[in-house]
């Protein structure tokens, strides 16, 4: 008897193996043997700069784009062989709110509900639920073009949740939002995560991946260059850095204090009179440094505890800063910047 396929431990909702996708007859390699997977009920953050291949990955997994080679399944279904079955179980929310802007939020949700083959009544009930869940009930009957960026994104996300997808793809859900819009979006996504949705999320912000994802893959030039939990990645990067700017005459004394407390060597930028060093104890180290400097009557001109950014992650993994792709528009289709229609 042939044994049924065994899932070793947890079931993988998304599997991508050696995906390759080139544009312009192979001149631009958007995906270069990219592999990743997402365990059921978890959140994978795909972190990378513009043009790294994030959007292309999402487009392949959501059946919008056929890979040149490689293999991918979503919910156990092959995305190339049976795209229609994949579309039944996924939700996709892209970089730009893909909604009909002349219609109202309500019109949009009902329309998408009907396209998911809900009955008119079911579509209206679901639209009402989603508008409530995303705090958009008051604006339900206003045209989308009057919405703020954050509201559009929330509605776009709502539209991708109409049939409670098994796997959700969010492509840079907060890019272009103001801080408040970003916080609201994070709250919404966190509540979805709590409900146990399987989510693949792309982002340019380490902080965002840190907030929302269980696991993170870092990609660059179409390849996965690191994978791990947020803590693992941060440990690899070296955690937080203390940065302090002092008068030129105080540099040597301040440097000694910082190196002793940090327990590590520091980097001094003479021009900016900035001393920086990695610290393990975060704010405690900061307080300690302030106390000692105060005792020595050294007055810091600027003082900051810097969390590692995507740039720092890149710096430590690849040795180079996160570069924009040579031809961004080729690697990641983006909407041209334009004025509104009217």
């Amino acid at each position: 008897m042939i044994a049924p396929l065994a899932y070793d431990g947890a079931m993988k909702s998304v599997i991508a193996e050696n995906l390759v996708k080139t544009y312009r007859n192979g001149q631009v390699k958007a995906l270069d043997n990219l592999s990743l997977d997402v365990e059921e009920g978890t959140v994978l953050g795909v972190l990378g700069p513009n043009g790294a291949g994030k959007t292309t990955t999402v487009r392949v997994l959501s059946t919008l784009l056929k890979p040149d080679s490689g293999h991918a399944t979503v919910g156990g279904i092959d995305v190339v062989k049976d795209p229609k079955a994949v579309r039944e179980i996924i939700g996709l929310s892209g970089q730009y709110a893909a909604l009909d802007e002349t219609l109202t939020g309500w019109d949009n949700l009902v329309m998408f509900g009907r396209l998911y083959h809900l009955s008119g009544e079911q579509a209206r009930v679901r639209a009402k639920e989603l508008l409530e869940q995303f705090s958009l009930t008051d604006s339900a009957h206003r045209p989308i073009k009057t919405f703020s960026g954050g509201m559009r994104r929330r509605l776009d996300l709502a539209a991708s949740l109409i049939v409670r997808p098994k796997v959700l793809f969010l492509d840079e859900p907060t890019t272009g939002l103001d801080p408040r819009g970003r916080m609201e979006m994070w709250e919404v996504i966190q509540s979805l995560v709590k409900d146990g949705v399987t989510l693949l999320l792309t982002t340019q912000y380490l902080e965002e991946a840190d907030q929302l994802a269980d696991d993170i893959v870092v990609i660059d030039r179409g390849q996965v260059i690191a994978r791990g939990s947020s803590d693992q990645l941060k440990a690899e990067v070296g955690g937080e850095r203390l940065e302090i700017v002092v008068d030129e005459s105080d540099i040597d004394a301040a440097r000694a204090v910082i190196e002793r407390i940090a327990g590590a060597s520091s980097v001094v930028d003479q021009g900016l009179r900035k001393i920086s060093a990695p610290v393990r104890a975060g704010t405690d180290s900061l307080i300690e440094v302030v106390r000692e400097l105060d005792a020595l009557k050294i007055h810091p001109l600027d003082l900051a505890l810097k969390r590692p950014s995507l740039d720092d992650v890149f710096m430590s993994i690849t040795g180079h800063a996160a570069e924009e792709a040579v031809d961004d528009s080729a690697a990641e289709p983006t909407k041209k910047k334009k004025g509104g229609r009217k």
Partner: protein
Amino acid sequence: MSSVKHSVSDALVITKRQLQQLVRVPEVLIFNTIQPVMFVLLFRYVFGGLGVGIPGGYVQLLMPGIFVQTVTFTLAATAQGLAQDMEKGLIDRFRSLPISRSAVVMGRTLGDGLLNIVVLVVMGVAGYIVGWRPTSSLLHIAAGFILLLFFGYALSWCGVFAGLISKDARVVANVSFLFTFPLTFLSNAFASTTTMPKPLQYFAEWNPVSTMVAATRQLFGFHNTFGVTAHSYPSEHPIVTSLFYMVVLMAIFMPLSVRRYKSANRR
């Protein structure tokens, strides 16, 4: 079969969306009808004197010309609508839904066809007010309008393809217009082809716009004095030739458009 049922209902949802747009932004419908009505008035009173010797006057030959010109512009309208949906990422979202691959383009062409009904009715009323009086039976008149709607529908499919391959909605609208506008004038729509240089005469006689104009003139009960020069097949058999053109256009552009839609990428 449920998949066929779904294809139809999905397309109707897309069509309904277009009608909702017209309700939300009524300006679109208003401008879509004002422009042809303006053409009716301008041509009627600027070139009205050309109609010496035409039974019923120039307006009898003019109206079919303007009807055909107006439905010809459906090509640009469809192209622009689809290109806008591409730009906004809506096509991406539609493609990520479990709907049939033809639903979006079917729905769009149907919506543009329905808009043409409204526009043709308004133009017909405007034409009647300025003296247009078809002399044929009601059945023939209805057949004339149905032919016009089908012609617009067939061209709409060329517009779908243009919209899907374009990168910019405004560019594709302008290009489509640049292509269709001369077509409507290198024809028998507004003046007799006999005064054109010989090569243009041949072009004008085979031009689908001319065959459509000749066909509708015939169906509305007027002798097509603007189009019979060389006794070519199209000018002798305008209805058959027009139907042939429509079938060919749809046979080419329906499958091409659906194929294009399947791999449409927003770039």
